[in-house]
């Protein structure tokens, strides 16, 4: 508890004791008023002074002002116990709220406590010095001892160990790493001493990016949040107006039309009850708290969500569009066969690797690996990349064209094609066909389960987009039970198909796109919810995405949807519950069934329950 909270707690205890004593003393009239005024002032002096301050600044519907009017009114009507009790409960509720919010702020903060405090570097004599991670330059060698967090992204140059990546990916199984492996900041080194050469600055490292994402997450507000803050803006004045009407109209009505006693006391009391119910705090607090806890819980499970609006949209996803390579497949290709070659297999691979040597596309990397290090005899003079087709490279040996069937057709090269599943890369030297290399990419182990899991959480349509050949795309889609597949796409085709799917669906249903590559960035931006694969994915894709899956496991898409549904369920429960109870109490208050005790329950009790309900969102383990 903070100092401020402790002080309020002390005031609550003292006021409660004084009130208990006062109600036992058998006095009446002025003496009783004075006896109750003492605890009332102790518990309520700040509310009263804030109320005056509010009036000076023309904030008539300030909740301090409402409480002040309600309790002072009750005192004037002679309801001393109720007047001071309402103030007491109001303060208790506020204290609970600030304590609960502080507590969940802390526990969510701890959940995301992946910020490294220091980095070890060696000084001249070889002993370790703890340094601020901020001032470490790229290329510095840092030492990570067992049990420490890796502070900055880098490459291992010495040592081997197991890493606990749970903070980043939600994956509890440790990952083995050795010399040459790239490691991400935020992982915990479990066993061996690691020497790491940094490849990023601290500000650009994974851990800093994640923290920035999560901390800025709730600025993008969801519709529910905006609804409730707008509701609160009108609710309080409306109820106050109703209170004023209630205090004046029925008594006048009785007096003039029924010729009965005006009974102002009863109606003013009912109006004061209204004022107590008009405080909007219970409504307002539980919604952002629910979203905050939902985003916190999701990041615990390795799913980064960039805003509450995306969490909300995710819960309405009915159509999921996948990119194939790297999303549903491992993204690491292997050469599966070589056909129709007019040069030796080795020579063919060498030519292909040479042409692709500047590209980082997964297929290019596979070709480079297959060719090995040997035989890069000739130099590249110029490389032209033709998106969706392949590359044409000018080398000292001649012009090497390397790409798909479309490229060969475009260049007018005669060739023979061997039909098989897998991606075919055709190679030509000086416009003469040299051969066909077939590479294939295996599906991720969880890809099929992921599609089924999506169907179970209510996704109606799954679509796969790929730049690959039709046969390959369709084979993969059949294997995974994906409904629709579009193959042989250029990057701009992906956007067009995404537009088409967006226009086909109903407006309340949302479309999610899952991708990883650089050419996915436009589609990620265009779709309702863009989901990027984090560890494999490119920085551009992660920037453009709304949700990032840290461990690249497609099963997490369904998990993220389940988290979002639970969170939205709780948010809706809270909205309905809080508004419902308040309206019920208003009605009961107007007919005189509910008194001020009821009203204060409607305010404080509902808030406590809503806050406790919201905190439930944090628990996403068993989803």
């Amino acid at each position: 508890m903070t100092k401020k909270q402790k002080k309020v707690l002390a005031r609550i205890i003292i006021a409660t004791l004084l009130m208990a004593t006062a109600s036992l003393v058998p006095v009446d009239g002025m003496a009783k008023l004075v006896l109750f005024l003492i605890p009332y002032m102790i518990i309520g002096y700040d509310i009263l002074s804030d109320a005056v301050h509010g009036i000076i600044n023309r904030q008539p519907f300030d909740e301090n002002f409402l409480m002040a009017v309600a309790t002072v009114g009750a005192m004037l009507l002679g309801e001393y116990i109720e007047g001071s009790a309402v103030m007491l409960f109001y303060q208790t509720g506020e204290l609970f709220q600030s304590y609960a919010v502080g507590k969940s702020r802390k526990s969510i903060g701890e959940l995301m406590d992946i910020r490294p405090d220091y980095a070890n570097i060696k000084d001249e004599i070889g002993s370790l010095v703890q340094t601020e991670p901020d001032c470490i330059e790229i290329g510095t060698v840092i030492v990570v001892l067992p049990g420490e967090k890796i502070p900055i992204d880098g490459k291992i140059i010495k040592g081997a160990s197991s890493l606990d990546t749970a903070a980043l990916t939600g994956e509890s199984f440790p990952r083995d790493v050795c010399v040459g492996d790239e490691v991400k900041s935020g992982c915990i080194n479990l066993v061996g001493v690691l020497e790491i050469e940094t490849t990023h600055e601290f500000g650009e490292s994974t851990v800093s990016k994640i923290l920035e994402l999560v901390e800025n997450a709730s600025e993008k507000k969801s519709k529910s949040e905006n609804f409730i803050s707008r509701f609160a803006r009108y609710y309080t004045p409306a109820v106050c107006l109703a209170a004023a009407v209630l205090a004046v109209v029925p008594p006048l009505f009785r007096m003039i039309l029924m010729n009965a006693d005006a009974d102002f006391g009863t109606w003013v009391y009912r109006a004061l009850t209204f004022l107590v119910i008009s405080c909007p705090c219970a409504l307002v607090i539980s919604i952002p708290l629910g979203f905050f806890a939902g985003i916190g819980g999701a990041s615990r499970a390795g799913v980064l969500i960039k805003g509450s609006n995306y969490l909300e949209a995710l819960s309405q996803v009915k159509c999921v569009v996948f990119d194939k390579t790297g999303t549903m497949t491992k993204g690491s290709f292997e050469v599966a066969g070589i056909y129709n070659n007019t040069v030796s297999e080795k020579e063919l691979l060498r030519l292909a690797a040479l042409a692709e040597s500047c590209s980082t596309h997964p297929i290019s990397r596979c070709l480079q690996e297959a060719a090995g290090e040997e035989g890069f005899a000739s130099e590249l003079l110029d490389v032209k990349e033709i998106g969706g087709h392949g590359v044409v490279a000018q080398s000292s040996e001649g012009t090497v064209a390397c790409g798909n069937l479309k490229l060969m057709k475009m260049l007018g090269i005669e060739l023979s094609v061997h039909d098989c599943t897998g991606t075919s890369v055709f190679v030509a030297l000086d416009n003469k066909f040299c051969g066909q290399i077939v590479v294939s990419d295996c599906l991720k182990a969880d890809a099929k389960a992921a599609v089924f899991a999506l169907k179970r959480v209510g996704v109606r349509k799954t679509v796969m987009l790929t730049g690959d050949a039709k046969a390959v795309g369709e084979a993969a889609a059949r294997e995974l039970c994906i409904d629709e597949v579009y193959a042989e796409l250029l990057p701009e085709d992906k956007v067009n198909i995404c537009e088409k799917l967006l226009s086909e669906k109903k407006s309340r249903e949302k479309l999610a796109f899952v991708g990883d590559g650089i050419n996915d960035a436009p589609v990620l931006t265009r779709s309702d919810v863009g989901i990027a694969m984090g560890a494999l994915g490119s920085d551009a894709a992660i920037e453009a995405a709304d949700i990032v899956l840290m461990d690249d496991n497609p099963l997490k898409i369904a998990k993220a949807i389940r988290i979002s549904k639970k969170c939205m369920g709780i948010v809706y429960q809270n909205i309905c519950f809080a508004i419902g109870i308040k309206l019920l109490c208003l009605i009961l208050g107007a007919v005189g069934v509910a008194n001020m005790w009821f009203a204060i329950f409607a305010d404080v009790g509902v808030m406590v329950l809503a806050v406790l309900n919201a905190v439930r969102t944090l628990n996403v383990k068993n989803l």
Partner: protein
Amino acid sequence: MTKTYKIEVDCANCANKMELAANKVKGVISASINFMALKMKVGFEDGADEKAVMKNVLDECRKVERDCEIYF
């Protein structure tokens, strides 16, 4: 230009009111408060003097919520 400031405020509704008040200050294009993270993100108009604008923002916020604090 956009900057993020740490704030202190007790209740969620007060944060909403501060957000409304801050948005009305001259020189501010948009202000948004994250109550759970206790942060205020302010987008300034071009050429606005942040310090002076933030002083006005704080003054306006104090009018709706006396206990609030913005660290700038």
